[in-house]
């Protein structure tokens, strides 16, 4: 059920970011795939986010080549379901209640979740760059 939600989140965010109409569905698939891995790979929430983001990166690169479209079309919308919005919210409310130790702990969790998203995308992007350079040199 959550995976279906993730699909529609990415789908509708595609419209907000003016994605091409024919790629909205695939953007949704990227989001759903990333979230599916997030739920099953989530030994710890942080690992889940990392592997989810890694999946989004891999799926985007594959779809970009199949559909001959820029990778960011799929990555941008695919990442949205992984954004730690609820964690950020809980951080804020903890600070408002002046529960600083909880606030700092939640804040760090939010920070590291965002970092895990960045790391996942960074790894796939840089692997693709290496691959591209290697194929160009061969030609």
């Amino acid at each position: 059920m959550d995976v279906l939600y993730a699909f529609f989140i990415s789908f509708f965010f595609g419209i907000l970011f003016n994605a091409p109409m024919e790629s909205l569905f695939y953007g949704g698939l990227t989001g759903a795939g990333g979230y599916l891995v997030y739920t099953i790979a989530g030994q710890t929430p942080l690992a889940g986010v990392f592997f989810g983001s890694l999946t989004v990166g891999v799926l985007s690169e594959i779809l970009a080549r199949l559909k001959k479209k820029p990778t960011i079309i799929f990555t941008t919308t695919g990442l949205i379901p992984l954004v730690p919005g609820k964690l950020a919210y809980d951080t804020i409310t903890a600070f408002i209640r002046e529960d600083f130790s909880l606030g700092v702990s939640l804040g760090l969790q939010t920070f590291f979740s965002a970092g895990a998203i960045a790391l996942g995308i960074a790894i796939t992007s840089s692997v693709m760059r290496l691959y591209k350079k290697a194929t160009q040199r061969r030609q």
Partner: protein
Amino acid sequence: MNYLDVLKLTVLAGEIMIKSGAEIYRTEEVMDRIAKNYGVKYVESFVTPTGIFCAIETDEGQVFTTVRRIESRGFNLTKIDKVNDFSRRLARRHIPVEEGIAELTKVAREKSEYPRWLKVLAAGFGAFFATGLIGGQGLEMVMSLFIAMLVRSFIIAIPDLGLFPFFLDLVGGFLSTLLVVVISKFYPISLGVTVVGSIMPFIPGMSITNSIRDAIAGDFLASQARGLEAFLRVIALAVSAAVVLAFLT
């Protein structure tokens, strides 16, 4: 061959891509590819989120250089795709320079890919499913749907005053949270999931993605600029939500 027209076309392509939120290295790559396809041997492009510099050298050794200032930046994945598609087609068969300029000028003038009402609807349903994803129930999801649609309509109706860039995020976060808090006085909804869900459509997803990808490509200048943009916009959302929550709960 008219080198000035080639330069014009190259810079136009770069301008559209940066204005639509493309990565720096991809923009430079597309610009180089377009110029080389018209037989320019030496082309150097230097792109930042706020400006483009491009130089081409003719066979006689003359160098033409141009600078283009980028003042407005938005998010339009379709335009990035169209310029990308143009450079792909150019690699396969020759397109006269004039035709290319005409085609890209048309792309540059295009407004948003989707009508406003559809964007409002998309923001609503984005919020609807985002609320569901973080554990919201039926009533909370429906409330997020209507709040996000209402706030988005309001944001779209505000004319572009040219205020500071995250002004709209401040307004959006503030209004969304305010509406959720008011509604929670009458209906038994969980504040947390509804606030997060209805704010979701304001998440600067493209700035975040671009910042990472620019950093990987070694464009640290652009990466910092976009990372800072994303950071400030998220902070604007969080602070405006926090202000409402601190005073009304």
